[in-house]
């Protein structure tokens, strides 16, 4: 095996075999971030279940009790949690990936491994967190069913893995673009929190898109998270179905951004250590 280290590499050249060879490291990084997340806290891993409950509870107090935004007939806690878990999955992958180059200088400056390993590990740890959040959500689901609330799983619930995939790929795509861009444009780092906040408000997490006028709702379809959030709610409750074409704009955007992100990141990672 001969490795060639060259000044210029074609932008489309991707070494997938090399990334595959480091899959073990992807898992280890994911384990590391999960294992060290709540170390030395009193509740320890219980936090994984408490966290989604707490954030949904905040929404419940503000939007359910005080402002009284309608959820279209779905129990409030269930409504907020189902939106939150997809949003958290997205933000986890997006935010961590966007600083994966500048935030891991101590590693990337001292040893070589494919720079895509870090973003991939965020997907793995994000997916595990999503699974745990899902468990918390199912607990509430069971509770409401016992209370006799009129909600039921739809057959479409089996499409949920695809919704997760769409969310993760969108997070990865946007994250890679931002990571590559921040190598040169440091300003992006300061704009990012605002962008994320805006994005969260544009996603129907604490409000139902039914409250938005149909004309405006079409513009919301461009948000890659619109489809997963609204469709997941429908598939676990049977309330407020969305038309299939609502997925298209978001999926298209995800595909474009992800492709751009992969190649841009691949190009930017070659020399970023000299710049950051």
């Amino acid at each position, binding site marked *: *095996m*001969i*490795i*060639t*280290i*060259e*000044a210029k*590499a074609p932008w489309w050249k991707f070494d997938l075999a090399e990334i595959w060879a*480091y899959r*073990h*490291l992807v898992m*280890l*990084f994911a384990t*590391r971030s999960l*294992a*060290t997340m709540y*170390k*030395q806290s009193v509740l320890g891993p219980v936090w994984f279940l408490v966290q989604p409950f707490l954030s949904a509870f905040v929404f419940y107090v503000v939007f359910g009790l005080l402002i009284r935004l309608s959820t279209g007939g779905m129990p409030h806690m269930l409504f907020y949690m189902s939106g939150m878990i997809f949003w958290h999955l997205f933000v986890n992958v997006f935010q961590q990936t966007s600083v994966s180059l500048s935030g891991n200088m*101590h*590693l*990337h*400056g*001292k*040893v*070589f*491994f494919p720079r895509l390993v870090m973003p991939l590990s965020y997907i793995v740890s994000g997916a595990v967190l999503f699974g745990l959040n899902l468990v918390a959500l199912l607990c509430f689901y069971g509770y409401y069913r016992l209370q006799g609330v009129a909600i039921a799983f739809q057959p479409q619930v089996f499409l949920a893995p695809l919704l997760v995939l769409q969310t993760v790929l969108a997070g990865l795509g946007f994250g890679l673009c931002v990571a590559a861009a921040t190598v*040169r*444009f*440091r300003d992006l780092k300061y704009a990012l929190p605002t962008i994320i906040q805006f994005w969260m408000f544009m996603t129907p997490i604490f409000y139902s898109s039914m409250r938005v006028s149909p004309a405006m709702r079409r513009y919301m379809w461009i948000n890659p998270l619109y489809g997963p959030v609204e469709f997941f709610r429908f598939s676990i409750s049977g309330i407020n179905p969305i038309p299939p074409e609502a997925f298209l704009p978001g999926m298209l955007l995800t595909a474009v951004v992800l492709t751009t992100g992969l190649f841009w990141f691949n190009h930017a990672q*070659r*020399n970023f*250590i*000299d*710049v950051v």
Partner: protein
Amino acid sequence: MNATTSIRVEDVSKRYEIGSVTRLNLSDEIVYHLRRLIGMNPDTLSKVDKVVRDREFWALKDVSFEIKQGEAVALIGANGAGKSTMLKILSRITTPTAGRILVAGRVGTMLEVGTGFHPEMTGRENIFLNGAILGMSRREIERKFDAIVEFSGVGRFLDTPVKRYSSGMYVRLAFAVASHLEPDVLIVDEVLSVGDALFQAKCIERMKSIATNSHTTVIFVSHSMASVRSLCARSIWFEDGCILMDGDSEEVTDAYLQKQEALKGARAPAPRLASQPPPAVKSEIPLRARTDRVGDGRWRAENAAMRFDKACGQWLCSLDYTSEQSEIVGAILVVVVHREGVPGKCVVVLDSRCMGGLPARIPGKGTIQVALPRDFAFAPGRYFCDLTCKTRVARTGYEGFADQVRSAFAFRVDDSPVFGWHRLPLTPGLMHVQQEWKVEGTP
């Protein structure tokens, strides 16, 4: 690349842009990329050009060498000479600006001990994580786990988070993991100076056993000439981004130490050096009697001068040289001209590698003459020149140092007439060139 070659470095250069790298601002950046997109040279016509040129710095300049499989080679040189940049490129942390490198097999790097150690994780977990970061497979780590623990001597604390370790234990565990890598090429930066004396000795032992191992190629960077000599048979001396000398460790480290001494000697009596002109030529000693030279002496400079030849109206630089051979193959001559009182920059470099230069074979003894263009003249002042005689091995492309003398000779320029000028005007410029002036316009 043949079977016994482990690393081949071909004309590698690396440019850094010092200071802020962002091109001025967003609009300039956009203009830059648009120009590039439509195929124009983006650097012309823009402010970008000036800013980038001023700030660039070449950490490596056309470096070439070859390392055989199983060889242990040290890279030595002062801080900023380019060795660390070389290591970074070899270990793929960054890429070269020009040139390429071929490496046979897997590369392991030890630029730092404990890369990726997480304080909250236990010793055991960190062994696995650190091992994987360095490129070991899970099975490989499992196989070497006991040896690593044994070597580190932290066995009792294996399940304690490493943040509770003493700094010595931490470093010992980290070195233990790194030193059990078994790559085809091992790249080691100065990491042996860790731990107590006993552990240091153990580290050196361990490194020795890796270095003498016939299939692992080792590249080692250190400022300790003692460790270099004990670990590596061959050394490459970097200076200002170029290879100054390449050969047997004993010889190279001797020359290096000698130079260090000379520098120390020169620095000691004149602490006000910064405001002083650069070191004047030791004119009282003729060039052939000078002893402060570096190189293998394959051919040597005997006498050198720069003078203005009135008959042909050109500046001529001539060098009398000698050697033990009847002819010299692959001779390269470099003359760097400095202006007195202008430290850090040189006026011009005469390099026989440019534009024709010297023939592939030159007689064993003789005189080399290089003529500067007719429309060029040095501005009045005092100048001194560094001389470097090299030989290039055609097969590998090595450029070995035959003889190098700093401030080998000096010359003085008075306001003698050139270009038909009666007197040369005094100028802060370093040179005069033939100029053609023109005015266009309407009354």
